[in-house]
């Protein structure tokens, strides 16, 4: 089962194979997208389920129509931000600038979401649609705040790496060079951000247009 | 079964008895006796008894399932007992490995075929039984399986209105009268419309073999064909709040003449209340209140 039993006891600990953590990051973000999808699918399900049941004729009680302008602005900003970040992540020299632009756009989009709540003409109790609208957009926005944090960490490490130099000695237990691990992190982050923006566009289509 | 290379078990192959044959024989004996016991001794006493046509159907269904499960359980248990006795390590101080048997394609195939056949039979049988008469279960607003009613005798509609923590019964065919206790005529097809005013309840008339959840805003239909006069235990079968444990009562199946007398008396007795009730509807929505603690 094990390696050769005759080797003398080594005084040092052999580092783990290179590439494990890179692969782990790559796999993790994809599985994490699976998790997040099931989370948002629950709201999608709630939308269509409550709409089809229309209990007590209360899918919409009164005038329940959010303004398309704000919704469109949010979705467009998210989509643009994701495209910029993803493209920037593919070109190392542009990543920091593209990431900053993406971060600002994402920040504005999420602020706009909260601004929208103050502008709405209806309340959360006004039927199934209003419930789903508030539930979906609010959890989505909070999720987005988490993503903002994630993007920020990537930009901060890029910025610090640029200032202090990339190829510092690797810490104990990390066989991968910092630079590869950092690129893997940025790739994962931009990949997830693209997914997140896709969900945003889908939710715009469903909540505002359908 | 597989025969590993001789000698690897430390046991001479010559004296090895035919384990497989022995297990099959034991299994046959146990299953035949067990199945016979289930069908002829246990079967007639299985729940929920013969209070209605649907209840009798459930007894049949339970008997079939139990009879089928006896050979399955016997196969595993006989095998386990045999294996644990015959294949036990007789000298635990010494570590000797058994033969490295890693599988057997034909056994796996046979197992797959057998279990698939059993499962498909069960699902098919259950579906046929279910689609025949609905088996007394709640079927939602658009029932797909109803027992055949004689044309001269349309089904008796009874609306079961559950609320915390009691059932009330409304008879749309008798002026929409609402009564706190239930009586049903014998030998009649009854159409229950189960709904709720607040949280989820479940209308369980045990002896009739009826169970239907009461959801607010939902009309849940269940059919039952009553037989002779009978006392029926009614319980709420879905946790519905603090006094869920006290939500039970007794209903009665009485002769058709007695039922006619009873329902007339109820109509007269509750006439003033009936006027104040909302008109008969499939569902009722109480005014919403603030939610939370």
């Amino acid at each position, binding site marked *: *089962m*094990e*390696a050769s039993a005759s*080797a003398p*006891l*080594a005084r040092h600990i052999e580092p783990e194979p290179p590439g*494990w953590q890179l692969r*782990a990051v790559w796999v*993790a973000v994809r599985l994490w997208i699976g998790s997040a999808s099931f*989370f948002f699918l*629950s709201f999608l399900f709630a939308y269509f*389920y409550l709409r089809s049941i229309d209990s007590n004729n*209360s899918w919409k009680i009164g005038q329940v129509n959010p303004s398309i302008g704000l919704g469109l602005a949010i979705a467009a900003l998210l989509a643009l931000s994701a495209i910029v970040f993803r493209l920037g992540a593919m070109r190392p020299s542009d990543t920091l600038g593209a990431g900053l632009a993406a971060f600002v756009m994402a920040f504005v989009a999420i602020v706009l979401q909260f601004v929208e709540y103050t502008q709405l003409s209806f309340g959360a109790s006004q*039927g*199934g649609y209003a*419930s789903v609208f*508030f539930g979906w957009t609010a959890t989505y926005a909070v999720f987005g705040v988490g993503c903002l944090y994630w993007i920020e960490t990537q930009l*901060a*490490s890029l910025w610090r*790496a640029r200032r202090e130099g990339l190829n510092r000695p690797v*810490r104990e237990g990390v066989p991968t060079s*910092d630079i590869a*691990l950092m690129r893997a*992190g940025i790739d994962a982050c931009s990949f997830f951000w693209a997914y997140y923006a896709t969900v945003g566009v889908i939710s715009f289509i469903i909540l505002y247009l359908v | 079964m597989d025969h590993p290379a001789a000698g*690897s078990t430390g046991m001479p192959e010559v004296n090895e008895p035919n384990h497989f044959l022995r297990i099959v024989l034991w299994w046959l004996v146990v299953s035949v006796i067990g199945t016979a016991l289930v069908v002829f001794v246990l079967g007639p006493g299985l*729940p929920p008894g013969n209070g209605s046509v*649907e209840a009798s159907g459930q007894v049949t269904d339970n008997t079939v399932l139990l009879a089928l499960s006896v050979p399955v359980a016997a196969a595993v*248990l006989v095998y386990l007992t045999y*294996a644990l006795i015959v294949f036990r*390590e007789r000298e635990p101080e010494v*570590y000797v*490995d058994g033969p490295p*048997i*890693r*599988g*057997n394609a034909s056994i*796996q195939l046979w197992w*797959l075929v057998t279990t698939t056949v059993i*499962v498909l039979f069960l*699902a098919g049988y*259950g*579906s046929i*039984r*279910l689609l025949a008469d609905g*088996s007394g*279960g*709640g079927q939602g607003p658009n029932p797909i399986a109803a027992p055949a009613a004689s044309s001269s005798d349309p089904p008796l509609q009874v609306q079961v209105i559950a609320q915390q923590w009691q059932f009330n019964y409304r008879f749309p065919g008798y002026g929409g009268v609402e009564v706190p206790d239930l009586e049903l005529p014998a030998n009649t097809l009854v159409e229950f419309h*189960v709904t709720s005013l607040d949280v989820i309840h479940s209308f369980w008339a045990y002896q009739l073999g009826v169970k239907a*959840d009461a959801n607010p805003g*939902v009309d849940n239909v269940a059919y039952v064909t009553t037989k002779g006069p009978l006392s029926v235990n009614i319980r709420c*079968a879905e*946790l519905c*709040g*603090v006094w*869920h444990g*006290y939500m039970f009562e007794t209903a009665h199946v009485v002769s058709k003449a007695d039922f006619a007398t009873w329902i007339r008396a109820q109509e007269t007795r509750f006439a003033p209340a009936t006027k104040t009730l909302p008109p008969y509807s499939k569902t009722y929505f*109480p005014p919403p209140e*603030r*939610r939370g*603690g």
Partner: protein
Amino acid sequence: MSTIAVPVARPPLWRRLVGFNLLAGIALGIIGYVIGQWIGGRFTGVNIAYYSKTAGQNDIAIMLGYFFGVVGFLIGMGFANYPIQRMLGYPPTLAEHEAEEEGVGRYFRLCTDHKVVAIQYLVGIGVFFFIGGLNAMLIRTELLQPNTHVFGANQYLTLVGMHGTMMMGMMTSGILGPFANWVVPPMIGARRMAFPRIESFTFWLLMAAGVVLITTIFFGGFQTGWTGYQPLGDQNTAGYDAYIGFFALVGVSMTLLGLNLAVTIISMRAPGMTWTRLPIFVWSVLATAALMFLAAPMLIAALLMGAMDRTIQTAFYVAGQGGSSYLFQNLFWVFGHPEVYIVALPGFGIVLELLPVFARKPLWGYRLAVSGMLGVGLLSFFVWQHHLFVSGINADLRPFYMLSTELISLPTGFTFLCFMGTLWRGRIRFTVPMLFCLAWAFNFLFGGISGVFLSDVPSDVTTHGSFFSMAHFHYTIMGGLVFTFFAAIYYWVPKMTGFNLSERLGKVHFWTMFLAFNSTFAPLFALGFMGMPRRVVTYNPSFQALNDWASVSAFILGISMLIFLYNVVWSLLIKREPAEANPWHSKSPEWQLATPVPVYDFERTPVFDPDPYPYGVEPVPVGRPVVAPAGGQA
């Protein structure tokens, strides 16, 4: 063995108590709770002094209190340090100071050593398992008589709810938490999980969740049982907020635990450890992890909708305002049915992993066993409406759900076939772990067969919501999970702790538990058939004899747990008999490590040979036990 640990002078006790540890976590947790309550109170126009008098009347304040409390606790535990470092742009790192610290202190703080987290899990979950078990004892005490005599209706329902919620929430990680965290890395040749900080995070989050659930008793409890059906939950007092908080946090913990395990297994297998050589336990963990991180988010979403109903007054579950009680039932059971397989699958894995060791044979039908586990996992997403057969939802789909539910018995049957095949002509040793595995087969057989009655709609009309279904899932979950949980404890604890558990006490524990378990739950099948619904505080007086029988048996079951506790205290804390490196003569990789296990598990990444179960392959000299080479993997 050499490690990189350098002896340092131990600082004085008070110095060691200051820092990011459990004490700081509790302190910041309490402060956070008060802050959350205060914000919630301000937000809704009520001040905090009002709260102390009318505790539990403002859901927003209570929810915020829980949220800030948990966040404060996690900050105190030190989980914010690394994220803040990352915000400042420090590069990703795996090294944690805590990982190299020796001594008892590391069990009370963020520790990234998978072996430490596993033992934290074992003890932490054990505590809640015993609290949940105590609830069960109280429930059975109340059911000694047909009318209320010890507890009121509300107390009784709160006990029922806490028992169910605690067991279903905590024991979900009951095998994955302690045993997968400990065993999976050495089994696949890794020294750590892919994300060690997240591994520790899942544990401490689970503990915080457990405390949140217990606080329900200060807010009037909740009367919904573990299923928490809406709109009853909307109507409940503030105790239901604790239910939401608990299950949502458990959901987060489950999601991350599942992700972490799946990522580790997928991406960190040592050279030679191909998919077809993976030990069967790792396969079961992978299947379970997939169910976890896919199903748990739906639970979180369903509970968030409930929380919004109770706070910002959305109407997801209010039929009169366009909501639906079915929405919760659907979302809950789309999570809930994978959940019961999350609970059952690791049990399959443990049984099939241990059986070759004690039958001294390779696993019979490896590929069949793997496909069985994956099949169960896949099918479990397509059966959820069998919980709603009589609810009036989608009546025309019932034949489909009947079929899909019964189809699950096919892959489950594979596990049984592999179980039986491995015993065939083996040399079966009746050790304590083996006894628990054999009991699994017995219990799960009856659990599975009774499940057929619940999956068949005509039978389900009577058995649904009755004691029959209660007995059924106790046979599968307690008989399937808890028995294998103990099998795993008796099997792996000598390696995990370095000390032996008493074999004699273990056998006493097993026989008391096995007999008392069957004696408790077998009568409940009959009670359900006779018409006793679940979760009732009163019952028909004619059911009393059977109920009393079940109660007395349940008390004996409780005593068997005390025997186990005595065994643990006596063997691991008092007697402390050092364990051999490989007392079971197992050929599995984790048993080739040295005992006690060094911090870095093994010095070189192992290379695996093609055979995960090499029993009976090379002729073993008769009369001489196979002893693992000392010095671990070297």
